[in-house]
Every structure is written in C-alpha cells, then in structure tokens.
C-alpha cells in the first residue's frame, strides 16, 4: 500500500465524508431544515405566483433545493474544525488537503441528493409527470458535485469564525438564485439577464430539470450537461488549489 497513491487517498477521503455526515449532517436541526425547506418553499411559491404553471415552479424548486442543501453546511466545516482544533489533527494525518476537500464535498453531495429527491417525490405526488428520469438523475448528480464544489469554494477565506463565512456565503448564494432562471423563465429575460444567467451553473441545472418534467428547454440538453461538467471540474480544481494554499493559515 502506498499511502500517497491516488486510490488510497480517495479511500481515506471517504473516512472524512463519513465523519462529516455523522457529525454535521446527521443532526436533528440540519435534517429538519433540509426536509422542511423545500416543503415551505413549495407553499410559498404556490401561494405567491398562481399565474406560473406547476411544472415551472417544481423545476425551480428542485434547482433551489439542491443548490441550498449542497452548499448549506460545507462552508462552515473548516471554520468549525479550525476552532475545535480537529483540523490540526487532520493536518497531521497522512491525508492530502485535496482528499480532505473531496471528502467534505462527498458528504455535501450525498446530503444534497438525498434532500432533493424528497422535493422530486413531492413534485411527483402533486401529479407532475416525469418524462426523462435518467436525464434528471444525471443532472442531479452532476449539479450536486458542482454545487458542493461551490460550497467548498465559499469556505476558502481562512477564518475560524463560522458565522462570518455563513454571512459571506449567503451574500453570494442568494443573488445567484435570482440570475438562474428560477423565478423568471429564460425566454422572457432581456439579453443582459441571459448573459448573467449563462454564468450560473444553476441555470443549466434548472433547464435540465424543466426538460425532465415538461420536455421544454432553453439550451440543448448536451449543452446543459457539458456546461455543468465544465463548471464542476473548474470549481473543484480551483477550490482544491486554494484550500491547499490557505489551509496552513487556519492553524
């Protein structure tokens, strides 16, 4: 066994993911937040905008649910662990920073997917037809990877005060939702709005979900999927590179 080999590091990152799930995700408040958030968003949407079709709303909701759950906890993990000094333990263990980041991402991917499936089930229960199930699953998986990389990117500033990082990440997360075609359909957007929307990975995911439920889409499906894949690769590479640089500053 070469401890530094890729496969061994991936295996060790799974230990990080399990630890995260146990400590940070498998907690009453987090689970309740995760499950109730989509439910309440549904209700708010249903009461707020009667003129939009249900399929449109559900697609937006699935997009928001995945985006918010996959980025909910991970930005705060490093600050928490920095404060509790457990990060110092990880830093002295034979695991690379990339593997730690990957483990944190894995946990948030699983959490995001789990809660999003709840939203999908609610949608189906409301009578929405699922037209492209495989596409939906691929989209959810890819977008979960992409959003959890964003979550880790939000964790880059080396502060050990969790509330600072939560504030900062809200400042970035909410505007992103507004430019991603969730509240306004892409075909009704002005050109500058479309330009902004094209920069947000959430746009492509929402487009794919809409396609899965209604067959309608704005971008071609391969474009949506490629865009998500490229965003995922880029965000993952950048977040790993930046964490490698900032990690020693947390100690």
């Amino acid at each position, binding site marked *: *066994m070469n*401890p*530094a080999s890729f496969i*061994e*590091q991936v*295996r*060790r990152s*799974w*230990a*990080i993911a*399990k*630890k995260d799930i*146990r*400590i940070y995700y498998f907690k009453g408040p987090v689970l309740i937040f995760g499950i109730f958030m989509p439910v309440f968003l549904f209700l708010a949407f249903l009461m707020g905008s009667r003129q939009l079709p249900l399929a449109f709303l559900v697609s937006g909701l699935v997009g928001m649910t995945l985006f918010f759950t996959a980025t909910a906890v991970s930005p705060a993990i490093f600050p928490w662990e920095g404060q*509790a*000094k*457990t990060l*110092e*333990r*990880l*830093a*002295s*263990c*034979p*695991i*690379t920073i990339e593997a730690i980041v990957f483990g944190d991402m894995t946990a948030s991917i699983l959490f995001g997917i789990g809660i999003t499936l709840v939203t999908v089930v609610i949608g189906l229960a409301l009578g929405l037809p699922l037209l492209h199930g495989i596409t939906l699953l691929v989209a959810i998986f890819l977008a979960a990877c992409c959003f959890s990389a964003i979550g880790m990117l939000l964790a880059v500033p080396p502060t050990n005060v969790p509330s600072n990082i939560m504030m900062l990440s809200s400042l970035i997360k909410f505007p992103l939702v507004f430019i991603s075609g969730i509240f306004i359909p892409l075909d009704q957007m002005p050109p500058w709005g479309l330009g902004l929307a094209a920069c947000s990975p959430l746009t492509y995911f929402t487009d794919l979900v809409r396609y899965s439920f209604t067959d309608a889409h704005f971008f071609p499906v391969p474009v949506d999927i490629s865009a998500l894949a490229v965003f995922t690769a880029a965000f993952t590479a950048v977040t790993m590179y930046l964490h490698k640089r900032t990690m*020693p500053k947390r*100690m």
Partner: protein
Amino acid sequence: MTVMIRASDLTKVFGSNTAVDHVSFDVDEGEIFGFLGPNGAGKTTTTRMLTGVILPDAGTATVLGHDIRSDPVLAKQGFGVVPETSNAYTDLTAWQNLMLMGELYGLERTRAMQRSSDLLGMLGLFERKDQKVQAYSKGMKQRLILAMSLLHEPKLLFLDEPTSGLDVQSTQMILALLRDLNRQGTTIFLTTHNMEEANRLCHRVGIIRGGSIVAIDAPEKLKMAIERVHRIEVSFDREVPGDALEGIPGVTGVNRTGDKWQLTADNQYEVIRSLVAFSQQNAASIVTLNTLAPSLDDAFLRLTEVTGP
C-alpha cells in the same frame, strides 16, 4: 544509527515575532528527546513544523527520511502526534474517533478494532468507549488522544506537553506507557516545560528559549555544564574550624548554615575522599554528608535567563 528527525535551520515568523529562529537538531532512533523551554519559547511552533501542520518560513525538516514539505503523506504515515490541545472529535465516541484514525491511516478494519481495544484497555478507557468524548475529563481526553496517535503503531511519536495540567493518575499512566513504548523501540520527541519530567524520561534534552536552541545534551551533562561547581553539605558531631575545612584540597569555598557546612568544589568525589580523611585526623565523625547536584531547574534557569551585560 538512523536519524529519525532532522531539523535544519527551521524558522517561523509571525508578523514581527520570530517564534522559531534557525533551530537545528537531530533525533536518533530509539531516543527519547526532550524539548524543554518556558512558555512561548517556540516548542509548539517547532513541533507543528516538524509534523507538517504549518510550513516553515525557512529551513527544512526531514522526518523518517521524508522531507515533510515535499513528501508529507509518507512522513505522516510513519509518526503519531499528541498535540498541545486535545483534538478528538467531541461529537463522536472514543471508539468512533479511533475508527476514523484507522481509516485515515489506511488500517484494515479488523486490525484497527483489535488495536483500539488493546489501547483502550491499556489506558483504562475501554468501559467508556461508546461514550461521546464531550463527557470525558481532561485526563481521559488526553489518554484517548494518545491511543489515537498510537493506533497505527508509529515508529516515532511527537508529544507536545502531554502531561501538562493532568491529574496524577493520567500523568503516571502516560509516562509509564511512554517508557514502555520506548523500550520496545519507539522514538519519542517530547516537549515540556517540566524539568523533572525531562530529567526522568529523556535521554537527551534540547533547551529552547526565545526561539533559539540554547543547549542540547543529556540531562545529567546539562546540569554539569551549567554548574561545574558542586556543593557538598556536611556536618560533624563536634565543632571543627572553618579554616581547616578551607584547607582541604579541592575545596573552593566554605559556608556555614546552622550546624552544617556547605562546601563548593570543582571535583566533588575528590573532596568527599578528603573529607573522610579530615574527619579521621580531627576525630570528628561525619553526621550528614549530602552532595547537592544542581537540579535541571537550576540548569534551566541558568541557561534560559537573559544574559546580562
């Protein structure tokens, strides 16, 4: 002899404060190396650089033959760390913490479980292994950290003030275990500000002050180096003249305290022999005879005090 740790000119600067300033030393296989210094001397900062937690601003560290900067994973695979502040996951049980360590070090599950049971038993924690670490006392936490650092049977163990602020029971248990481990071949790097601990446990001691190494030697030799002049305390069953004592070959000073005499000497053994002859010649039997070797405490104060003009 294999060099387990080689620190070369390790330097760390925090803002305008040079916490560690060109520190160099070697630790050989099988040694217990003590790193002794007062608070703020740079012990923890040095340990963190050696264990790859922080990066040095200058200098290099080679641990178990691997450069800690270019080959961190290979180096870390071979050593265990007990850091200054307890850092087990308090939301996990002791058992879960140990299993996590097992996975992070790539141990097979069955081996991790066997080692964990053994270590918990040895450290008196087995009954409470399924309790969250939150509920542990400081001493129990420290014993758990020690178990976590030993799970993968490291050849080299770093400990940063492992007994600082602990109850007597935990302290004794930890020190006994360290001695056992060393007897079985584990090399130990231990920081402490407790001279007695360093004296009792360590084969060699490096003394650090203000970020720089002041001296490295065996604890006994360090004492000698500091205070070459030894003191001998003696009393007789009857009055003897002070100037007669001064005339004894090798005695460099005489002091009277109560009914005892304190003699200073370059060579205490020669003086003791002369004292015996002196007592026979003067028909004065010796009632008490003590050699007052300088304690590591003295050595420590002497070496770390700021040298005046």
